[in-house]
C-alpha cells in the first residue's frame, strides 16, 4: 500500500479540455445523485399534499417560497437532464449513435434540448 502513496497523482482536473460527451456524462451522474438526495423531501411533500385540505394547501404554499421554488426548478432541471442524457445512453446501448462523431453530436443535441426545456420550465415557474 505504501508504494501506492508514492505514485504521482494528476491534480489538474480543472485545466483539461472537456468535450460535450464528458460533460454530459458527469452531469448525468451528478444529477442522479442530486435526484436521489431530493427523494425524501419530495415524498414528504407528496404525503403532505394527500393528507388533507390543509396539507394540500401547505405543500403548495411552500413551493411558492422563493428558495423552495428555486430548489424545485433545480430539481426539475436535474430530472430533465438525467432523463434526456439517459435516453441518449439507452440509444447507445442498442448501438444507435455509437460512432465518435454521432456520439458528440447527440451529446450536443441533448445539452441543447435540456437547455430549451429547462428554460420553458423556468418560464412556467417564475413568470
Amino acid at each position, binding site marked *: 500500500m505504501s508504494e501506492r502513496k508514492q505514485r504521482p497523482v494528476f491534480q489538474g482536473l480543472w485545466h483539461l479540455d472537456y468535450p460535450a460527451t464528458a460533460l454530459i456524462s458527469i452531469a448525468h451522474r451528478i444529477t442522479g445523485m442530486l435526484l*436521489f438526495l431530493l*427523494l425524501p423531501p419530495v*415524498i414528504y411533500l407528496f404525503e403532505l399534499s394527500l393528507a388533507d385540505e390543509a396539507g394540500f394547501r401547505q405543500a403548495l404554499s411552500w413551493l411558492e417560497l422563493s428558495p423552495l421554488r428555486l430548489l424545485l426548478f433545480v430539481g426539475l432541471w436535474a430530472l430533465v437532464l438525467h432523463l434526456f442524457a439517459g435516453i441518449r445512453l439507452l440509444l447507445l446501448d442498442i448501438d444507435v449513435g455509437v460512432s465518435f462523431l454521432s456520439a458528440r453530436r447527440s451529446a450536443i443535441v441533448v445539452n441543447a434540448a435540456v437547455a430549451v426545456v429547462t428554460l420553458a420550465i423556468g418560464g412556467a415557474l417564475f413568470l
Partner: protein
Amino acid sequence: MTRQLSGLRAWLVQRLSALYIGLFVLVASLALAFDRPVTFAQWRSALAHPAVSTTVLLFFAALFVHAWVGIRDIVLDYARSAAWRLGLLVFVGFSLLLMSAWVGRILLEVAK
C-alpha cells in the same frame, strides 16, 4: 444484496426500470399539463383511482431499484475501502427500503 444485483442483472434492471420511469414521467407530464388537478379533492381522487395508484406504486418501485443500481455504481467507483463501500451500500439500501415502506403506506392510505 449486491451479489443479486451484480453485472448483467444490474445493467438490465437499470435499463428496464429506466424505460418504465421514462414512460411514466412522459405520461404524467402530459396528464399534468392538460388536466392538472387544482383542488385537494381532485388531486386525491386522481390518485385514488386504481389504475393511477398502481402505476404510481410501480413507478416508485422502479425508481428505487433504478436509484439503487445508480448509487451503488457511484459508491463502488469512489469509496476507497471495503468498510466504506459496505457501510455506504447498507445505508443507502436501508434508506431505499424505508422510503419504499413510506410510499407504500401513503398510497395505501389514499386508496381507502
